[in-house]
């Protein structure tokens, strides 16, 4: 039995709105989106001239260019030397490459007992189906330990450079939080984010957890999770993200991840060097709980990478979480 709606009631339904939108009479975007249009840029020749003068003066003050002939000469020669240096480097590299063993040759020095053992015995010795993961997290774990600390050091350097320490009682102004020229509460973006972010983060977790079973691992999975967090931040703004991800969260997470990594690897380095049998079972290859410590290490690396990506983003955008 069909129901007949009155004109007014029909106007409230979804299908009417869709019809209107389809006919081009109504834009759902218009009233729900607040966006401050960027002011038209008017050329101000005097001000620009003044700025240029000021810059010149400042440079002059620092380098004393006007009474510093070597600097003047240096500026002139600089470009020439730059170009010459680039060409020199390119030529050197091309010459070197042309003498290297050719690609794909069977007799290459790289095809030696090192890579052969990785390929033939990797699964048996590390328990990881993905031999790349087995290599970076078991055979050459010391390098990867260093590499994850490189990420941490880089984040700390960015914190030193960009973190804006608020004085007590000082609130973010709109300008500082860098949200003036951005769409606020963009419905489309928020809807898409709501749909997309959970699968993105789930996928990231999957990539991390299955790093020892197939392509993936901590670095790639962490990058996926970091990207998901950045998308969420873009859609919902800082007010929502800082509820669950502050600087403290980042630090605690990365310290515990790196500490866990250090401890786990210390154990395996110590037992390895002192010829003590490690008690960690390798498990059945192919099972999710297998390959010894690799799963744990992958999770640690994933946490560090995700945190690093997110921290870089917020630091470059606002200078604080």
């Amino acid at each position, binding site marked *: 039995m069909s129901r007949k709606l009155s004109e007014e009631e029909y106007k409230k339904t979804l299908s009417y709105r869709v019809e209107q939108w389809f006919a081009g009479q109504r834009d759902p975007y218009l009233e729900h989106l607040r966006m401050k249009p960027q002011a038209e840029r008017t050329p101000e020749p005097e001000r620009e001239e003044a700025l240029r003068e000021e810059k010149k003066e400042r440079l002059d003050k620092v380098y004393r260019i006007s009474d510093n002939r070597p600097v003047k000469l240096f500026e002139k020669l600089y470009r020439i030397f730059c170009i010459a240096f680039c060409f020199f480097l390119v030529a050197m590299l091309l010459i070197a490459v042309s003498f290297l063993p050719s690609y794909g040759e069977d007799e290459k020095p790289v095809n030696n007992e090192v890579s052969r053992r990785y390929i033939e015995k990797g699964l048996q010795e590390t328990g990881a189906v993905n031999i790349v993961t087995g290599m970076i997290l078991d055979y050459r774990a010391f390098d990867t330990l260093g590499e994850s600390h490189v990420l941490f*050091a880089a984040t700390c350097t960015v914190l030193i450079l960009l973190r804006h320490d608020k004085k007590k009682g000082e609130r973010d102004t709109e300008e500082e939080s860098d949200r003036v020229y951005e769409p606020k509460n963009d419905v489309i973006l928020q809807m898409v984010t709501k749909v997309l972010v959970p699968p993105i983060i789930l996928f990231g977790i999957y990539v991390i957890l299955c790093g020892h079973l197939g392509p993936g691992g901590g670095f790639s999975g962490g990058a996926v999770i970091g990207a998901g967090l950045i998308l969420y931040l873009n859609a919902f703004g800082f007010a929502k993200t800082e509820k669950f991800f502050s600087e403290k969260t980042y630090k605690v997470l990365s310290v515990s991840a790196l500490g866990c990594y250090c401890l786990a690897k210390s154990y395996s*380095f110590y037992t390895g060097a002192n010829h003590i049998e490690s008690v960690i079972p390798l498990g059945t290859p192919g099972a999710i709980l297998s390959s010894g410590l690799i799963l744990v290490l992958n999770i640690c690396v994933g946490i560090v990478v995700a945190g690093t990506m997110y921290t870089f983003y917020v630091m470059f955008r606002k200078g604080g979480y």
Partner: protein
Amino acid sequence: MSFVQNFPFFSILLSLFAGPLSSVLSGKAAKALNAAVITIAGILSAATLVFVLGTGESYVYTMGHFPAPWGNEIRVGVLEAGMAVFFCIVMLLCMMGGAAERLLEIEEGKQNLYYVMVNLLLCSLLALIYTKDLFTAYVFVEINTISACGLIMIRQTGRTIEAAVRYMIMSLLGSGLLLLGIVFLYDLTGQLLMDHIKIQVQLLSVTGEYHIPLLIAISFMAVGLAIKSALFPFHAWLPDAYGYSTLSSAAILSSLVSKGYIFLLIKIFYQVIGFDLIVRSKVINVLFVFGVAGMLFGSVSAIREKDIRRMIAFSSVAQIGYIYMGFGLGTTAGMIASIFHILSHGATKSLLFVAASGLTDVSDKRRSIRRLTGAGYRNRLAGVTFTVGALSMVGFPMFSGFISKILFAQAAMENDGKMLVTVVALAVSTILNAMYFLKTVIRIYTPLPADGGEEEAEGNTVLRMRDCPAKSLAMICFIALNLFLGLSSEPIVDLIRKGLDMFA
């Protein structure tokens, strides 16, 4: 396996973990942790040194369950352990001497980040010293570069940011060249472990195969590390980075970071390529020319400088030139002289930075040399310390600089082709050193004129030892270290010789 043999690994892991841990601590706790970590690492390295001296041979420590070409390994000998002890001592003294400046110059919320950087830097230096794997070396070179950048720019003024950017660009160029060199070597030999590469490289040199890419790989690695350790034509980043960063950063950067890279270069010479092959490849002649040029031009720039910190920074260029000149001689004696100069310069340059800051403290924080008139009377200990450092740099007997100069001269006598150039360069460079260092010493012991000196005396204060206990203690320890290196050079040179024998 003796338990002591684990100590290098413990010291690396301890300083590595102390880095992230400092980031959740408060500034004060992080400072205490940092001092403890440096001390413990020093003690562990000293125990290792005693152990290695006892057994008389180096040993290899497997990092993990997999042996030589498959897993990572570190290698510990007399030279490595001795260098680690020295680095820890100097770093502890630098941190002690610059503690007051750090409190003033670093924002309160970022104090702990400084210690994160220092801990990671210590870890990377230890790893660079001990590693037996070229790629591991590269990873820790990265940590070293990034944390050094952090140390420069944590005092946030325009000039330090600029200096950090410059340092970053030059240093990354150096890392890139080093990485390219490693990649070439890997492609030619299929190995990343140092002594395995060496076997392959020796084979290649006998057959004459891949001669050109091998040469290019060697030169890329040498030039990359030369850029990172500020050899003469690549030193543009140095004066600002050392001159404007906070005191302990400047001292650590000049006396440790550049030395870490130089030590890696020595490792590459001896353990990756083989010293005889390096000598035959003529790459060292390039290093020799740049080294000699650096000895002269660095000093000339220092003479023209009016800012005391920048003057000391430029003097580093000259001293790094000495070290590379020693490499360039291509003899073991030259190498021993260079390694001794690494120690001597590391001890003296940080001493000079700390003493110079003691002098500027009593001169209203102004750093122009004119303003330091009479500063030696206002802060007596800093005056004495600066004089010791200056005399050591000039090569006055009793101090460490004298020994390294005499070792360089002796090494030059063994080398026919380069003897004249080396000896003349040493003489000229010594005179140039004397020109700017003794000028400053005379300046700080010239009393202020009784009349008309008001303008220059403005803001001058008097500091006694008890006013700045940490810095005074650091200065006294530095003087002691310098005298120790200068007076007991014989056993140290023996130690270096023994270490080099074990090294190859």
